[in-house]
């Protein structure tokens, strides 16, 4: 048997099996081992909404150059059950390889049949598979063992012994096989230590770096790992994280904590956010800073809990009764998750209202290897205990619309906030002239928010034949599709929006006007961002590449759609 994995570019490794087989553990360990060996990785998860059974995959794209999106073709398929082979055999590249149990019913594809039962105790079979995958990919065994030691810690000594034995047996077994594998080309030594982290973890660390001190949440996939990450570090970072009785309580707790001076946030998915909407308006009216992470999944209603989509843009844009300023940040990468989480806290603090981080399951669960975050940006500044203008008025009418905030209990002044229309002192009023002035004051803050908008990021050819427009997590796949088109001779540009509200037309209208054809690439069925651009600029993006089957964009998907024609 000879099986070579010959690839110039990155390899796509897919581990597939049922929930409960430990495939995520294999995936995380393998990805981390690859990063430590100097490879770049992009790891994505596709899982069903169940704890046991079903069909799940953990995919790792690994190579000497950074990858921005998952690929569809599979070079190495680690099949923990027969169904994985059945579902994915057609995605194998011509030189791809399947790793499966020796009893697996499989023919017609190159397969490495492994006697897992002989290599490992029952509870460590997944670690034997990890060992086989590591050996096939040419990783040093010590690298795998180090990753296991870090992952399992000192807590599970017996399991650790079994796991190490399984990996050692896997390497010994591979050495005895009459096969040679072309291993992953040895990468150049990494310029500096890299970390491997996913989008939700990056949001949590970005929030901590900005000074977040309070988070209340109600569990909902795919947002939950944001608060779970915060909980892990809460004590060390002096933060309070509370699981509320429902999403309504979660956002109201965060608003209460924020009013009392704690930089505060909540995180949820579309359905949970629907319950929070009333209090988005409350934050707008009481001018209370709050960061709201909305991690999208396919909707309406319960939708597909563990898949991805970008269909809540219009919802988040319009959520909340009445007119008040907001900002919506849409990170396109793990790095932007960190950076924009920090920016969200700054904006919420400076403009005293709701700021959204709109992400999705794909980005939430995608691991990337990156240069460790820059922690230099200072946290949001503490509020003063006294106000220069006395008597203190919480809602003093100012030119910028921003009124001086003091913290109740930490100032000699009394602080009054009201969801009713209120006078400058915060107390309820039905004076209709005051009402008019307060509406205008609140909306004046929009000018400040506009001055701080993160402009869209353009990459590629100027005056292109084709301009691909994206927001949020589609950035990576769009960038790779654009690169492929350029390589094929099409002058192509890619325009990524890390912030979708407010929009500043002068930031991007020239890109739209100077392209021969413009295509919006969005993970929804109605082209919501294209409609928003038309509303704000009059520019009609005629062509749409949409995806709403619950899966993330891949470069292949975008290229297929472009070649088959797009809908408008």
């Amino acid at each position: 048997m000879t099986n070579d994995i010959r690839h110039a570019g990155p390899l796509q490794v897919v581990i597939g099996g049922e929930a409960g087989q430990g495939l995520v553990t294999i995936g995380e360990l393998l990805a981390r081992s690859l990063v430590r060996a100097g490879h770049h990785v992009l790891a994505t998860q596709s899982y069903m909404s169940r704890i046991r059974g079903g069909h799940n995959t953990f995919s790792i794209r690994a190579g000497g150059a950074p990858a921005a999106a998952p690929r569809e073709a599979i070079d190495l398929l680690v099949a923990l059950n027969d169904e994985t082979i059945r579902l994915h055999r057609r995605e194998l590249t011509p030189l791809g390889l399947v790793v499966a149990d020796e009893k697996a019913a499989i023919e017609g594809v190159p397969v490495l049949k492994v006697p897992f039962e002989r290599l490992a105790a029952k509870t460590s079979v997944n670690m034997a598979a990890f060992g086989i995958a590591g050996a096939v990919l040419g990783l040093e065994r010590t690298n795998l063992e180090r990753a296991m030691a870090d992952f399992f810690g000192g807590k599970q000594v017996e399991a650790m012994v079994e796991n190490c034995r399984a990996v050692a047996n896997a390497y010994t077994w591979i050495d005895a096989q009459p096969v040679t594998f072309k291993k992953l080309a040895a990468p150049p030594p990494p310029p500096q230590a890299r970390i491997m982290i996913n989008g939700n973890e990056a949001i949590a660390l970005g929030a901590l770096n900005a000074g977040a001190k309070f988070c209340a949440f109600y569990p909902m996939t795919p947002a939950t790992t944001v608060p779970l990450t915060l909980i892990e570090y809460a004590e060390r970072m002096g933060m309070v994280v509370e699981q509320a009785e429902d999403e309504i309580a979660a956002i109201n707790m965060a608003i209460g904590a924020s009013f009392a001076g704690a930089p505060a946030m909540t995180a949820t998915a579309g359905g949970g956010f629907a319950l929070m909407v009333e209090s988005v308006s409350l934050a707008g009216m009481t001018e209370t800073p709050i960061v709201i992470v909305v991690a999208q999944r396919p909707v309406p209603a319960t939708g597909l809990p563990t898949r991805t989509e970008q269909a809540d843009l219009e919802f988040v844009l319009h959520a909340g009764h009445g007119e008040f300023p907001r900002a919506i940040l849409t990170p396109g990468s793990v790095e932007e998750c960190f950076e924009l989480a920090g920016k969200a806290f700054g904006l919420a603090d400076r403009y005293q209202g709701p700021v959204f981080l709109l992400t999705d399951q794909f980005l939430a669960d995608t691991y990337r290897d990156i240069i460790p975050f820059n922690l230099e940006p200072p946290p949001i500044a503490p509020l003063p205990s006294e106000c220069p203008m006395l008597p203190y008025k919480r809602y003093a009418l100012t030119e910028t619309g921003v009124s001086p905030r003091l913290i109740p209990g930490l100032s000699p002044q009394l602080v009054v906030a009201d969801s009713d229309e209120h006078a400058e002192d915060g107390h309820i009023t039905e004076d209709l002239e005051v009402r008019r002035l307060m509406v205008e004051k609140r909306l004046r803050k929009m000018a400040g928010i506009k001055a701080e908008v993160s402009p869209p990021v353009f990459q590629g050819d100027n005056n292109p034949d084709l301009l691909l427009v994206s927001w949020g997590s589609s950035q990576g796949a769009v960038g790779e599709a654009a690169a492929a088109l350029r390589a094929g001779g099409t002058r192509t540009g890619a325009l990524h929006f890390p912030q979708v509200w407010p929009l500043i037309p002068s930031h991007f209208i020239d890109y739209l006007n100077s392209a021969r054809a413009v295509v919006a690439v969005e993970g929804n069925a109605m082209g919501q961002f294209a409609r928003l651009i038309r509303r704000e600029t009059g520019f009609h993006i005629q062509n749409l590449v949409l995806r709403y089957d619950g899966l993330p964009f891949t470069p292949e998907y975008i290229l297929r759609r472009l070649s088959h024609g797009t809908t408008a």
Partner: protein
Amino acid sequence: MEQQRERSVVLEDYGEYETAWCPGCGNFGILKALKQALVACRLPPQAVLFVSGIGQAAKAPHYLNANLFNGLHGRALPVATGAKLANSRLTVIVESGDGCTYGEGGNHFLSAIRRNINVTLLVHNNQVYGLTKGQASPTSTEGFVTKAQPDGVHAQAFNPVAVAVAMKAGFVARSFSGMTDHLVATIQAGIAHPGFALVDILQPCISFNTVNTFKWYKERCRDVAPDHDPSDWNAAFKLAFQWEEGIPIGVIYKNDRAPFESHFPACAQGPLAGRAVDKEALQRIVMSYA
């Protein structure tokens, strides 16, 4: 702030304001007693945060000097919980009505009891909706006739005291807006209790409740027996169900469960506001992802 705590607190600190209530409303008695209780607790207005919802009762904190977050209908308790966690040194008092607290905010009421957050909940319970002009509330008696329930209320009245006792809330008391001294003492005991404290305050609504009038309450409200032991859960539970035959007022039940905020290490270090970020610790956390 510490100096202010030292200075004696007087009624004038809490001010006197014009209200939007009907003349003769039970809210006046509650507002008066509340100010006296705050003075008796020697709490300056700066040390107190009121959180209220929506309803005639929820306007009460607008009529005194204190910090105030007047939020949404039903949502006062979670706001108060967040504020107390953010600054456990604040005295946090939630003030709202029966509809806001037991209807719209029912889940938050149950959860606040479970947490035992150190917040005092004052419920102006007039058994009817005043702000929206006379519909039934969760505490309206079965059969109570309104424009919205012309055949009488078909649902059983919610018994907040029984529910709170059943759930072993930290402090459960009932009082009556027409008995100022009793109400002052009860609110004072609620504020002093280090844990969640419910004070369900019966009050007449002179405009929309012609059944449960001042006279009706006055005839029924009587102090709990001096030998009642509020730590005796079984005895408290029995008291909680007495109503038509005589409504026990006073401290029905209490226990010494640790307040919710005491479980958070971050709260022990004082207010969460203005805290620095330990960048070295965060750097170590970031590098743990290597």
